[in-house]
């Protein structure tokens, strides 16, 4: 959407700063920026409860989605190599989605997550583990 809008407004140069304002008023650019902000907010929300190495592969599904939109909405050709890329990304995301979402919270405690909530979480895990051992 951003690229669509920027192509509509034409090139922006430092000497024509009113061009920047014009670009911001273009609805495509404005909606594109809003969507980017929404992406960033949900990305940060995901990071608050999951590992970076869990969230990041998942965001790469955006590349796959982009390619599929280009194929079905814009009728662009997708080469064999790109299909291979789509398969690789999907496979990688499937791999990481099979594991647990957060490793740094409980068992493997991060030194950065040092509030009291983590302490209770760790003791819960410990008691659950000992309970499991008794059974």
């Amino acid at each position, binding site marked *: 959407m951003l690229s669509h809008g920027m192509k509509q407004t034409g090139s922006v140069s430092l000497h024509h700063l009113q061009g920047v304002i014009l670009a911001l008023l273009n609805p495509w650019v404005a909606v594109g920026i809003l969507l980017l902000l929404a992406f960033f907010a949900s990305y940060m929300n995901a990071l608050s409860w999951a*590992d970076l190495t*869990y969230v990041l592969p998942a965001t790469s599904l955006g590349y796959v989605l982009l390619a599929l939109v280009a194929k079905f909405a814009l009728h662009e050709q997708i080469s064999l*190599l790109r299909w291979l*890329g789509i398969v690789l990304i999907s*496979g990688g995301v499937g791999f990481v989605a099979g594991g647990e979402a957060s490793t740094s919270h409980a068992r493997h405690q991060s030194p950065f997550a040092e509030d009291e909530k983590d302490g209770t979480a760790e003791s819960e895990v410990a008691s659950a583990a000992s309970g499991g051992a008794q059974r």
Partner: protein
Amino acid sequence: MKHLYTWSGILIVVFFSVMGDILIARAMKKVGDVHELWDRCGLWTVVGKVLSRTSFFLGVMAMAVAFFSLLFALSWGDVSLVAPAAASLTFIGNAFAAKIFLHEKVDRRRWIAALLVAAGVALLAG
């Protein structure tokens, strides 16, 4: 000489985007589960907590630097090399950095995922 410029540009982009991701992830880990916090204290507490983290601002700044250095790198090298190389190396760099700085347990499953995604992104963005 041109190759040297291009690859150092790519490495600078990767360095700053990894730094941005790590700092923001670290800020969000310190804030804690946003959903839970929102339920307990409301949206504005969440926003305030996020904005009061220095690492959040440093992360956003690092991401901005990464964006502008990408523009520079694009002027030094071809788009078909710089864009996919920077994107896919960021995934691998993030796996290393998350292990070192965030102490995430990057097991074999996650390494394979990072490599697969990096290869896929390189193919798609190229």
